[in-house]
């Protein structure tokens, strides 16, 4: 029962699927929600508050037999810009990539403008990302900007 075994538990390998690594600890469950993992029947390993050399504490998700389209996975970039996506087949890493901020954001962010129709009626939010570096989203409906500092997730 040494250090080694404990380490192995943390990173226990999956045969086929996707690993999402380097998720900021505070965003881990937002990522779970954004990707609708509650509805998934696949085996999921969730690691929270793990030590990370780069980020202090991190979260990790391992999803057996689950593969994402890039536009699907990029949705998490808003809450976890540091995340790394690792695609695994037969225990081998076949692809490793970072998430990128998408051009459009659907449903996951709330519009900052209280008088926006999306905050008054049952209307799903939709934004165009007008500034990826500073994360500024323009509402498709009220045309106002929701910026990083006043962004809340649905």
């Amino acid at each position, binding site marked *: 029962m040494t250090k080694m075994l404990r380490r192995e538990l943390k990173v226990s390998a999956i045969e086929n699927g996707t690993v999402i690594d380097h998720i900021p600890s505070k965003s881990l469950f937002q990522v779970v929600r954004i990707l609708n993992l509650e509805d998934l029947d696949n085996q999921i390993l969730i690691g929270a508050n793990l030590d990370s050399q780069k980020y202090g504490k991190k979260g990790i998700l391992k999803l057996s037999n689950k593969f994402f389209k890039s536009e699907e996975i990029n949705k998490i970039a808003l809450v976890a810009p540091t995340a790394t996506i690792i695609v695994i087949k037969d225990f081998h890493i076949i692809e490793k990539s970072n998430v990128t901020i998408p051009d459009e954001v659907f449903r996951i962010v709330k*519009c900052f403008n209280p*008088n*926006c*129709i*999306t905050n008054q*009626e049952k209307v799903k939010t939709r934004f165009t990302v007008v500034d990826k570096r500073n994360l500024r989203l323009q509402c*498709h*409906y009220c*045309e106002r*900007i929701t910026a990083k500092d006043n962004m809340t997730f649905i």
Partner: protein
Amino acid sequence: MKSKSLISISDFSKEEILQLLDRAKEFEKEPIQRILENYVIATLFFEPSTRTRLSFESAVSRLGGKIISFTDSMTSSVQKGESLKDTIKTVCSYSDLIVMRHPREGSARFASEVASVPVINAGDGANQHPTQCLLDLYSIFKTQKRLDDLNIMMVGDLKYGRTVHSLVIAMCHFNTTFHLVSPTELKLPGSVKVHIKDKNLKYYQYTDIVEAIPKADIIYMTRIQKERFSDPIEYEKVKNSYILTAEMLYTIKPDMKVLHPLPRINEISEDVDELPQAYYFNQAINGIYVRQALLANILGV
């Protein structure tokens, strides 16, 4: 352009704007054309705006179309909690086009997505009011005989004035030079300025009203509202600094015209009304021609 809604002035390309203004010119020559005799237009004003409503209803009437509207009892069904979506879907089965004004920003865009008929936005909260913009463009076009290469001076509340924002964005198609006159607190916001910068157009900012007057082809005046100021003392300081008077207009370009989206409070002194430069009362009639053109174009008749 058949079956296309108009929600925001940026939905229209430069060509579409020009084509629409040409059509408006035809309606000015011949205002009564009964081409909408077989059409029913619904005017849904979820908040009152008599001026805009009358203009649309007059435009529809001159085209021979029928108008259906809310009565008070219908508005109350909305107050009872019917969703905007349900109201719009219902009205779609009664009408061929919806003209809508609503206090919430983004309501018109949403309505156009759930409606099976075209929607014209007649104002959604503080967001857009594209037909006001089209009538401003038509007034400029008519008085200057062109839209290209003009010097447009805008005065007053450039921060919150939505007519100013739409007009700036639309005029960016036409190589405009902008002269922006406002108190420091009410400068044109960056989100609008970005359109000017994207097109590499010139703009100048002033806090004093008189400096740009000799350069202007158009002076576009707006109200400064007290509630826009967090500090009432600041409002008292600036409220009388942005009033256009007849004596300011001694050095001007020969065809210069003064526009104002109306209603005016005191920002244009009454001695300007008698001058040939005063064009703000003529703008209302232009609004009817532009709305006729828009209705006809959208319905494809």
